């Protein structure tokens, strides 16, 4: 699997990205790329610049310096919409889901399929319901019905709806912003299994996390961010959880802490 992905050209390549907000340097030279069918984990502690970086990748922020290559071409995303249309889908932590609305209505929100024309142009509810049920089933979730409200789903299931939606609408790169941070053990493993399914479809997954164990469970490559800089990228099998943990925390301090906690973190 690794060999196959290595031969593929990256879908998106970010070179030496810098982002300044006034006098604050949020990103000071970050390089990152994603290949089709791989899960590239972006790890970092709070404040490391993970959020700023993925917002740059998804078109929310424009980089101050550095270049973005999308399928080999220099790209400049002015809005999230541009990035979305190019095939970069981001599932943010708020998931862009509306609890009071049904799964189908959420799934197609803003992109409703229609039938008929002119005044009779209408939301093709049957088609939408059918697609939703089908897509959710592929992700391993059996809905009670397409009209089930999203509010009745568990956190993991909601995450899966958001991922399924992005995949259905043609994502080439799927950015997941801490998808497992608020989930229980079982739900986390469901989401990780979903990531695996998405990867198998040839989509490049960017998995943002600060949980080393979750990252190691699905990641093919691991990039660690610390204080706005990349500390390096490692392949699966080249790095131990302890090393990753140390890198994320900036090495030394963590070592001290771990001593006092008896290695439980």
């Amino acid at each position, binding site marked *: 699997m690794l060999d196959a992905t290595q031969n593929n050209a990256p879908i998106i390549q970010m070179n030496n990205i810098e982002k300044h907000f006034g006098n604050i340097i949020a990103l000071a030279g970050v390089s990152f790329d994603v290949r089709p069918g791989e899960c590239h984990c972006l790890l970092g502690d709070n404040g490391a610049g993970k959020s700023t970086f993925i917002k740059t990748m998804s078109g929310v922020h424009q980089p101050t310096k550095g270049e973005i290559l999308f399928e080999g071409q220099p790209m400049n995303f002015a809005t*999230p*919409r541009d990035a*979305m249309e190019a095939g970069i889908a981001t599932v*943010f932590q*708020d*998931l*862009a*889901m*509306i*609890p*009071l*609305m049904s799964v189908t*209505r959420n799934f*197609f*929100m*803003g*992109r*409703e399929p*229609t039938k008929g024309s002119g005044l009779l*142009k*209408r*939301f093709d*509810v049957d088609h939408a319901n059918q697609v939703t049920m089908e897509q959710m*089933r*592929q992700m*391993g979730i*059996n809905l*009670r019905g397409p*009209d089930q*409200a999203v*509010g*009745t*789903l568990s956190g993991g299931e909601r995450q899966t709806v958001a991922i399924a939606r992005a995949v259905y609408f043609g994502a080439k790169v799927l950015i997941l912003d801490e998808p497992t941070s608020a989930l229980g053990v079982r739900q986390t493993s469901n989401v990780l299994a979903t990531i695996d399914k998405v990867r198998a479809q040839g989509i490049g997954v960017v998995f943002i996390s600060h949980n080393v164990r979750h990252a190691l469970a699905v990641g093919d490559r691991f990039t660690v961010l610390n204080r706005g800089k990349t500390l390096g990228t490692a392949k699966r099998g080249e790095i131990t959880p302890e090393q990753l943990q140390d890198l994320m925390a900036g090495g030394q301090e963590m070592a001290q802490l771990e001593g006092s906690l008896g290695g439980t973190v």
Partner: protein
Amino acid sequence: MSEHTQTVADERIKNEPFMTRMMKKPELGAIAGVILVTLFFLITADPVMFSLSGVMNFMTPAAQLGILAIGAAMLMIGGEFDLSIGSMVAFAGLFFGVCIVTWGLPLIFAIPLTFAFAAGVGATNGMIVIRSGLPSFIVTLAFLFILRGLSLVGLKAATGGSTQLRGVRDATENDFLAPFFAGDAFGGLFLWLAENGWVDTFKNGNPKVPGVPVEIIWFIVLALIATYILLRTPAGNWIFAAGGDTNAASNSGVPVNRVKITLFMVTACCAALVAIITVMDAGSTDSRRGFQKEFEAIIAAVIGGCLLTGGYGSAIGAFFGSIIFGMVVIGLTYTDFDQDWFQVFLGGMLLIAVLFNNAIRKRVTGER
């Protein structure tokens, strides 16, 4: 792993009983309310209330309120309020009256102009709410007073001191558009029914009910259109989304601002329609028209299942909510009760509806 094995239903999910499925419909409360109120008046009121003329009698105020309530309900589902619709009725009535009487325009110009004017005021409301980010409650509360005041001032200016502008009927009597906005529809049908002895007639053979008042037709048609839009069009999905969570909706590509401003315009146009119908019906316009209708419309929408927080509700619910309203207002006159019980009843209904809706929302969203 084969995908086919997963189509087996989850064994923990029981078949949903009919009642549970009904409980998920936002309009359920209003339908139950209509049944309860009907039962109440069947027991306490003079049976005349449920004769054909009695039904028309309570459906007419229900329809006038309902046209406003359907607009208010759509706006509430979209996550905003409009407290200025009552004043808008007076203001649009003034504009319409001036078009007809002062400027002598025929209906074919006066009516589109009135709608365009109302839509403009609605858009102004919407723009201020969207641009400032203030709650629509406070912005439209300001317009409640501004529009009412302007109606008074404008009427005095147009009439030279009076707060009533007369002469609309004389000016519109022979207009070919008049039957669509005034009087009764299906007169021929009722005459025919009378000739066959299927409806009550006066001694001279004319039917006691000459037809269906046009506002009832408008009311039903609007309820159907609004329901269709909400449930079966992309725009309907955008309305629910905009009211459910502005951020999530716009992140998903829903043009939230356009949706909300359009809803403000639609609500104002509903007020203009009520203004046109009532002004043509009365033959005059005055500054107190639509007084406190904004609250009644919102109450009807809430009884119909709309949440105050937006994102949930139905136009059919508002339809039944308005019928409850009409039945109670008129129904009490058929009973021995003091009519002023009406207000107590109204407040009580509102309270029950809000409690009920709150419980429903928790059920739907799985909140605990």
